[in-house]
Structure formats: C-alpha cells, structure tokens
C-alpha cells in the first residue's frame, strides 16, 4: 500500500518551547491511524502544522494524492492544503454558528466549485447548475452523517454530538483523500461514541478516505485503528498496531499510567 501522508523529522518551536520534536509519521492509503498521547504532547500542534495553520520550524510534510505525485505542503496556506485533499475537524468545534447546517457543508464545496461574482449576479445556467450540484452533494453528505432532519436549522442550535458529526460532513464536502479528526469523540456519550465508531469506519470503507485521528477514548482507538502513533512531550515514543501498543511498557507508563492516576 502506498502512503498518502509522510512526515519526516517535523519540528515546531514556539519561542524557546519545542512543541513537536523531529516527528516521523506516515499514513498509508485506506488506513485509519490514531495519534495518541497525554495532554500537551503536541498532537494538535502537529495537526495544525499539517493543515497549514502553523508554519513548521523544520522537517518535511509530504502529501501524496492517490495516483498523483507527492507534494511538499509545509508552509502552504490552510486553503491550499485543503485543495490538495486534506481536510480536518477541530478539537473545540468550529462551525459557522449563524449559518444553516446545510450551508455549513456547502462551504466545504467552495474549493471544488468556481462560480464567480458575475455568475452569481447573472444567475446564468452554469451557476444555477453548479449551485444545484452543491446543494445535492451537501445534502447527500448530511444523510451520511444522519443530520438530514436538521438541514435548515442553524448550526448553533444543534446538540453537541450532532455538531461534531456536522464538522465531519463539512470536511468531507471538500472531497479529501485524507481526513484529519481532532478528538472527534470528545464530549460524546457512549451511545454517540459507538455511532461515531461506525461512521468513521464507513467513511474509510465506502468513500475510500484515509483517516488520521487524535483521540483520548481508548476503546474507540483500539477498535478502529490500523496503527497507532504515540507522542509524549513533542516526541514520538511508539508506533504499532493496537495490540503492540497495548503491550508497550513505555506507552503504558507515559499514557495509560496517567490515565490510571486520573
């Protein structure tokens, strides 16, 4: 299987603080990869580097679209990264609260469509067709995450779990080959988490999208991941299948140990 994302020696400094320290990571096509580690290990910072919100201090991030050539994406703007085919969700949900649920997803179509001001003003047949396609595509995604009932509601009025699913639908609307989920299960009840488990697996299988996720819910991580990367204090301390990680003493000490104390 070929890789879709390769990270080599990635480093991110904030002033004197090294948040990410020479991390190597790769995601292969069709994989679900989990990134775990105690709070403050640099997981979200790594995500922000990948998606262009931060400019890494050193190292390389390569994105390889299936069937395409590798592109070095560090230093690109977030929208350029998304255009290449990486989409993300946020740890503390960042929806567009005063837009409807459908419109939130429609924004995801922005970079895959191209009608301009003139088209919007004239409302010519091309623009109308494109607009219909955007609506249909977005609605279809809402069905996938079971939010079709809420199409016309304001995003801010959705329950918490539904907001997380909406963020996933919005990211999917950009037609990514790699989906990055930042703690998708945070704040969900066990029932919602089970549904999420199912949703993520279905996205990977049915839409053929590789997934990289940060998650603290160990049950979810062990259930769905093909491989797990473990970080601590900005460094990568272990890689392996769920089984290997479960038995790795270093990880138990660093991560599960903390869990046991908590």
């Amino acid at each position, binding site marked *: 299987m070929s890789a879709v994302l390769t990270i080599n020696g990635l480093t991110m400094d904030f002033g004197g603080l090294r948040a990410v320290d020479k991390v190597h990571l790769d995601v292969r096509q069709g994989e679900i990869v989990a990134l775990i580690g105690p709070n403050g290990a640099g997981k979200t910072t790594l995500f922000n580097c990948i998606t262009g*919100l931060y400019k890494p201090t050193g190292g390389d991030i390569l994105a390889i679209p299936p069937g395409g050539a590798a592109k070095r994406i560090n230093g690109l703007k977030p929208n350029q990264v998304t255009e290449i085919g990486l989409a993300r969700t946020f740890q503390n949900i960042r929806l567009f609260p005063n837009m409807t649920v459908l419109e939130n997803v429609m*924004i995801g179509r922005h970079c895959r469509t191209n009608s301009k001001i003139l088209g919007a*003003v004239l409302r010519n047949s091309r623009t109308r067709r494109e607009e219909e396609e955007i609506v249909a595509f977005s609605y279809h995604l809402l069905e996938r995450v079971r939010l*079709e009932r809420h199409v016309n509601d304001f995003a801010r009025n959705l329950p918490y779990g539904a907001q997380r699913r909406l963020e996933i639908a919005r990211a999917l609307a*950009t037609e990514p080959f790699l989906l990055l989920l930042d703690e998708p299960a945070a704040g969900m009840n066990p029932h919602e988490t089970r549904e999420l488990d199912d949703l993520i697996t279905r996205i990977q299988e049915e839409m053929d999208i590789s997934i990289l996720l940060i998650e603290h819910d160990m049950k979810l991580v062990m259930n769905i991941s093909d491989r797990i990367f473990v970080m601590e204090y900005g460094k990568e301390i272990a890689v392996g299948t769920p089984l290997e990680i479960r038995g790795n003493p270093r990880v138990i000490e660093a991560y599960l140990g903390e869990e046991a104390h908590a």
Partner: protein
Amino acid sequence: MWKFFSLDEIKKSLLMALWFIFLTFPIMVIRVNPIYNVVEWRWQNMALVGAGAFFLSFLWRYFLEYKNPAPSKPADDAAVSRSGRFSELLRSSGTRRLAIGAAVILALAFPYLFSSYQVNIMTTALIYVVLGLGLNIVVGLAGLLDLGYVAFYAVGAYSYALLNLHFGLSFWICLPIGAALAALFGILLGFPVLRLRGDYLAIVTLGFGEIIRLVLENWNDFSKGPSGIAGIPRPGIPGIEMSLNASSVFLYFLMIALALFTIMVVSRLRNSRIGRAWIALREDEIACQAMGVDKTKTKLTAFALGATWAGMGGVMFAAKTTFINPASFTFLESAIILSIVVLGGMGSIIGVIASAFILILLPEYLRAFSEYRMLIFGAVLVIMMVFRPQGLISNVRQTYRFKGLQENKEGD
C-alpha cells in the same frame, strides 16, 4: 414587571438620578462665556437630567433583564418566537408580494404626489440605501469593520466632479468610471491591510478615510481644496432639455433604478458561493480557511465590491447636489452609514433599507430634532449593541426543501 416598582428599585433609580445630576452638572448646568466673563446657570437642565435618569434607569434595568433572563426561567423558547415573528411575517410570500407591490406603486407615484423638495430628500435617502447595502457587504456579510467607507464615496464624487471639470465627461461615462476607481482604491487599501485583526482593520480604514479627506482639503491644485467644486451638471438624456424640476425627478428615478439594481445584486450575492464564503469568514476565519476558502481573495472581493457601491453613490451624490467639498466626507458620514447597517441588522437587506429610511428621513421631517441627530445616532449605536446587537431584522438564511424529507418545513 411589577417587581420593578418595589421600594428597592425606586431607591436604585433615585441613586442613578443623583449620580447623573452630579455627572452632568458642569456641562449641562453651567455655561461660561470666557470672553465676557459671564456665567449662565441653567437649573432647569438639572431637573430634566434628574427626571430623565430616574425613569430611564427603570427601563434600562427592565430591558437588561428582558435580554438576559435569569437562568432559572425557561424563557428561551419565548425569546425565539418573539424575535422570529417579524421575520416570519416577512417571509410569508403573500404579505411579501403585497408589501412589494405597495412599495413599487408608492415609489413610482411619489414624484407626482409630492413637491420637488420631498423628491430631493427621497433621492438622498435612496443614496443612503445604496451606501448602506454596499457597506453591508463589507461589515454585515464579511464581518470587516470598515470605518473609512466614506473615502470610497469621496472617490466616486470627486471622479465625476473632476473628470467633468477637466475633460467634460458626462455623467453616464463617469458612473462606471467612478465605480471602478472606487473599487481600485478598495483593492489598493485592502491588499496590505486585510490581514490585520478586526479592530486594527477598523482603525486603519478610519485613518485611510481621514487621509483621503485631508488630501482633498489641502491639495488645492488637484481638488480645489475646502472651497470645493461647483457647477457639476445633473444627469440628462442627450438631446432633451430638462427643467430643474424635471431633472430632479429624473435623478429620483435613476436612483430608484440604482437602488433596485443594488438590491438585486446584493441579494443574489448573499446566497451564492462567494456570499456564503463571506459569511463563513465572518463566523470563523480559521475554520473557513481550513475548509478551503482563500481568506485574502475573499476579503478583497468583499472590500472592492463594497467600495464599488460607495463609488456609484458618490457619483450620484455629486450629480444631485451639483457641488461637493471635502466637508461632505468626514468620519461622521462613515458613522452614519455604519449606523444604518448596524440598526438594520448585519447582513439583512430589508433591515438596511428600512433603517436607511428611518435614519435619513426622520431627522428631515422632525426638524425640531435635527440638531439632536448625531446625538441620537451615537445613542442608537450604543443601545443597539447593548440590547439588540443583531439589528432590526436578525439573520435570516435561505432554506431548502428536499423530496426525501417528510418534515413539513415552511417554504422559503
């Protein structure tokens, strides 16, 4: 409601009254004339302030409570239906058609029912409708607080005045040129400043507005300085001589056409790919970028488009008054246009039209109040932000219907 008249509340209001009497004492009561060394004592103002503060403090507390109900009360649903009722009424297609029909008839008949003085006032109000809708793109939709909008208005007005003066270009050629020049200025200013954070952007645009005005005031060779440019021709139809009265009616209809054009463009943009990107940018800049929207390009489009309308408004203004000078383009003008947008409801088209009429026509017809106009503008901005930051008409978004959906959603 009744608890607001308990002894405790009366005591609070009395304290407020005393505080404001103290606060306003030197400025409201005493007036000095340092040249003749006379002091005028205006005790009646003290009584006015005291009584006013006493009653207003009841209202203030009542509305604050009304806006933020105590968490124990399940008043949330009520709040939704309260604010929703007016919007619902606007959305129901029957009332809407009726209202639009009535507005069209009134607009067409207006010049034949009223004097040319009234027609001129109406033309002014329509210019502000266009300006308000234009600024609404920038502030209301894209969420970029532009305090120097008047600069683009000035660019439009001076383009017409100067091009006509030096090259004899007609109104019809200058209208698109004025719009294009304003857009160009929008891009020139927008390019460097749009990466600034919201409140810094506000101040830089304000500075830019002042720079344009000061340059117009001081660069005599170019703009004729404070004395301004007079004798700007009113628009006409080539080959037809028009009386003063006829030409102001003509200008009125021209303004109606421009306003309708603006409404059409803005409402179509609002529910388009680019309009959604503006709103998303306003709602959450980071998420918006992460969803593949080019921040700089999107902001720049909003800025340039907003400026275009200010440019056209400026050309119209110059044509209407036939005389312009830098004094028409002060920061207060920007503040008035901003009030129109804020009062109307950020992003709402009907709201902005309504508030442009309210803010421009009311002071015209209530002559007695006209000197209090700016005072009231200031108070309105504060009161709106405190009690109803969403404006007269709150955010209404387009709804869609789908075949698969069994729920009975009301139509758009």
